[in-house]
């Protein structure tokens, strides 16, 4: 069956591509195509984590680079000195500030994810039930903001929310309020910013789940006397669960580590761990502490969720 390739297949895969796969003969070419991207990511994405871990075990110092070496040796004097400091991790545990920052990041990300879902669902549902060119237009309208600068979209909200900004002017002119509301530099603005910038990441996986739904199910339910609200909770929602899970993870994980949104829209008391890491690094110049913050964030927040699901959906969504 696979005479054309002149080799015997051991894995017996049924795919036709498999049988014809001539790459097996040119092993070097095949190897290079796998190895080049894998090497790149190995060097520039995975080894860096080991470096971060190493530096999180050193101490900050006034030097270039600003941390103490882990390992010092002098072969002539037969002297090796390995110095591992757990001080940064102990400090993380002792100082309530860090724990608070982690918890507050999780809280802010979770609440924002919920509201993103709430706003994204009707949009995704409407798109999934529209037809033809209308569907393409609505989809493009959802994706278009995603192609424009994230930084500038967050910035747009600053002009919207500030004390003499557009929202306040509008409400004042209508007489709904007589004092401008304080909206910028509050947690509220941070929620709004996250919901706004991550909305497309929620709409697209929801849309692809809802699009596959068989609409005749709803008709059947109606025929059997089901009210619209009932059939929504009994049929539509359960069928959308894969999309809901995918969308929530795509919003939640990056939102936990968000820096730009709390920095521009949040107040000085808006605690988020991405901002803490940034300040440790850029303001305090404490590289070892910033590394410890990153390692804990990675182990506590990112790895568990990444193990549940790898990042497939994000790219497919685009």
């Amino acid at each position, binding site marked *: 069956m696979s005479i054309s390739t002149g080799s015997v297949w051991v894995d017996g895969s049924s795919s036709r591509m498999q049988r014809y796969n001539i790459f097996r003969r040119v092993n070097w070419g095949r190897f290079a195509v796998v190895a080049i*991207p894998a090497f790149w990511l190995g060097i520039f994405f995975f080894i860096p984590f080991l470096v971060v871990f190493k530096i999180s075990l050193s101490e900050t110092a006034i030097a270039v680079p600003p941390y103490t070496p882990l390992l010092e040796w002098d072969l002539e004097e037969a002297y090796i000195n390995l110095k591992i400091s757990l001080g940064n991790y102990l400090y993380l545990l002792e100082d309530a500030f860090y724990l608070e920052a982690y918890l507050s990041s999780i809280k802010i990300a979770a609440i924002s994810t919920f509201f993103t879902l709430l706003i994204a669902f009707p949009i995704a549902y*409407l798109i999934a039930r529209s037809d033809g060119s209308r569907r393409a237009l609505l989809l493009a309208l959802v994706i278009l903001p995603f192609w424009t600068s994230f930084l500038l979209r967050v910035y747009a909200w600053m002009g919207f929310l500030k004390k003499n900004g557009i929202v306040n002017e509008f409400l004042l002119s209508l007489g709904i309020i007589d004092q401008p509301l304080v909206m910028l530099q509050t947690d509220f603005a941070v929620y709004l910013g996250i919901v706004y910038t991550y909305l497309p990441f929620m709409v697209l996986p929801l849309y692809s789940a809802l699009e596959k739904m068989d609409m005749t199910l709803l008709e059947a339910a109606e025929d059997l006397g089901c009210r619209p609200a009932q059939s929504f909770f009994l049929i539509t929602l359960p069928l959308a669960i894969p999309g809901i899970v995918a969308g929530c993870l795509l919003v939640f994980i990056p939102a936990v580590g968000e820096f730009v949104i709390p920095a521009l829209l949040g107040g000085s008391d808006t605690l988020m761990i991405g901002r803490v890491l940034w300040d440790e690094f850029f303001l305090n110049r404490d590289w070892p502490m910033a590394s410890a913050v990153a390692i804990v964030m990675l182990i506590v927040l990112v790895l568990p969720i990444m193990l549940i699901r790898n990042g497939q959906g994000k790219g497919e969504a685009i």
Partner: protein
Amino acid sequence: MQRKSLFLRFSAGFGFLFLYAPIIALIIYSFNKSKLVTVWGGWSLKWYSELFQNDQIIDAALLSLKIAFISATVAVVLGTMAGYVLSRFGPFRGKMIFSGWITAPLVMPEVITGLSLLLLFVALEGMFGWPSGRGTGTIIIAHVTFCMAYVAVIVQARLSSMDETLEEAAMDLGAKPSSLFFLVTLPLIAPAIISGWLLSFTLSLDDLVIASFVSGPGNSTLPMVIFSKVRLGVTPEVNALATIMIAIVAIGVIAAMFQMRRQARLLAKLD
């Protein structure tokens, strides 16, 4: 039966309003004559002319465009390789690990990616003397790393949804692996490669956090300049800049949509 209730229309309409209101307000206020950003002083192009006289912004924009162009191009090459491996190489040992590796950068918080890359560059410089100092080169490496993951996923999705018969036919007719890829597969996945390139270009042009970590002194990219300006408050020049960038993207996306529509209509006619 495609019934859409009033409630659904209203709430989806609210969602779209939420998406577009700040952008539209920003565009309108970029034409505001008044220096006070929120007081309307009549239409004017004043801020656009000031923008083009601001050398700091112009230099940063040129640097960002250069970085985005190179990063997107390298990312497309590496990402296409990875996407091809994921969908056309069949099962091989370590494939699960490979696909996990490729997609991991997509979900990593930016502050972690940025910090870890910077520490790597510092460590490499200490050990091998490369890269000596940080700047354009290190930003490009960082951007390629996260952009190639997006390209890989887009190319993989396109390849998986594509019929394999054309490639099989070429193989039956004796095409070598390299000519099979360049003459048959590549033209078929060209749309995915183009959108992967465009996405990488946009992501690179937009990145603030990672570039801030890995750039050196005197290498401020456009987002870094915008961020330092915006942190002090709303500035009309940035409104003008944002309007220009949004206009370019909107024109591009709309043109692409019309192109796709025309192709779809052409295909429908052929049927």
